[in-house]
């Protein structure tokens, strides 16, 4: 298969069918073809995590995934986390704890943190730091991000 390849992907809950170039990454397709620019581009080598999305239930660096690999799959980007314009508990916690400075890494951080909380309901500090180690923040809000994830987990537990 070369040239444009037809693929079907469910993006943020919406089934979509479109064509992609074989050599285009999921990141490029999300940003350029689907205009989902919340997913950010920085290092392109899987180091910074700014391009983190959830693919079939697991987070990945979308710069290291070809778009065709997502064919038949399910992708969640940061745009898929707030429902009806209402912030998720985690998004609110990021703001409350002061975890957001320039904001460029934040979509990736939040997608990664959301994934962590799906796997571990009440993560320890160590688990949060490990779970988010693939997301660089040069404003270095790491302490605040850790606190935000912990606060969201606590609030979630309280709400249950």
């Amino acid at each position, binding site marked *: *298969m*070369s040239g444009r*390849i037809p693929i079907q992907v469910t993006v943020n809950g919406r089934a979509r069918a479109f064509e992609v*170039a*074989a*050599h*285009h*990454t999921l990141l490029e397709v999300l940003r350029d073809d689907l205009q989902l620019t919340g997913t950010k581009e920085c290092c*392109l*080598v*899987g180091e910074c*995590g700014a391009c*983190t999305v959830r693919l079939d239930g*697991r*987070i*990945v*660096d979308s*710069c*290291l*995934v*070809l778009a*065709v*690999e997502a064919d038949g799959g399910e992708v969640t980007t940061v745009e898929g986390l707030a429902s009806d314009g209402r912030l998720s508990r985690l998004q609110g916690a990021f703001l409350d704890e002061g975890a957001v400075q320039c904001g460029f890494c934040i979509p990736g951080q939040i997608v*990664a943190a959301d*994934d*962590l909380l799906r796997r571990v309901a009440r993560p320890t500090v160590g688990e949060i730091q*490990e*779970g988010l*180690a*693939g*997301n660089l923040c040069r404003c270095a809000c790491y302490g605040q991000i850790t606190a935000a994830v912990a606060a969201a987990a606590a609030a979630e537990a309280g709400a249950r």
Partner: protein
Amino acid sequence: MHAFSYERPATLARAVALLEAHGPEARVLAGGTDLIIRLRDGSLAPTVVVDLKRIAELEPGIREADGRLVIGATTVMTDIAADARIRRRFEALAEAAAVVGSVQIRNRATLGGNICNASPAADTAPALLVHGAVVVIAGPSGSRRIPIDGWFVRSGVTTLGRGELVTAIELPLPAAPMGSVHLRRTRRRGHDLASVTLCCGVDASGVTRLAYGSVGPRPVLAVDATGVLADRDAAPDARTGLLERMLAEATPSARSMRASPDYRLAMLRVLARRGVDIATARLAAAEGRR
């Protein structure tokens, strides 16, 4: 990234046929965490990329068969690190898988990719050497199996031939308990490519297996069958001398910017000493549990 054509074979036979037909023009794609970087930086420019992830016979997974644990080549690090059998029987491998990159990387990075990429720093290599892994290969003339000790040639090069690919990695289930540990040196605590990797395994008969990487063109396995290294009561000089001989094959390159050769060699010794201690203690704990 250069354009290429993308193939997604549904069967192993089709994959092998594609690889054989295209030879060096084709590249296997597993998790892509090594390959896509090299496609982007232009150091690899295949015309065909063959994705293994839709091949029925290559479903990821870990199963027990005939006294072996069979890890599918496309099994990702996340699943290896989490597997209860691996954590219990092959602790070092679980530890190695758990430190490959970040969560995002481990969700994609496959065991097959790690050994086929054949970086001297590949984290799983020392553990696979210590645990006596066998690489299962499919190719134009059927399937073959080779011990991992004969797999690595040099950085980026393995004994894999034209048209071949790795389908699984097998680990013989040890009859007696073994204590094993994976240790590494990195430039920061956050994820990093290692400047020294080391795995130590000590079994109940006192045999110590040390494997180390990132200090030469390929990972090295050294075995002490005398039992001296694992014997805490042995003369310190004897243990030191033995260790020195076991580490003698380390030949770190002066060209690397990650660490200088003398630091790597010094750290190899530190990790080896610590590794023997931890593996011995783990063995004792395992024996205690029995």
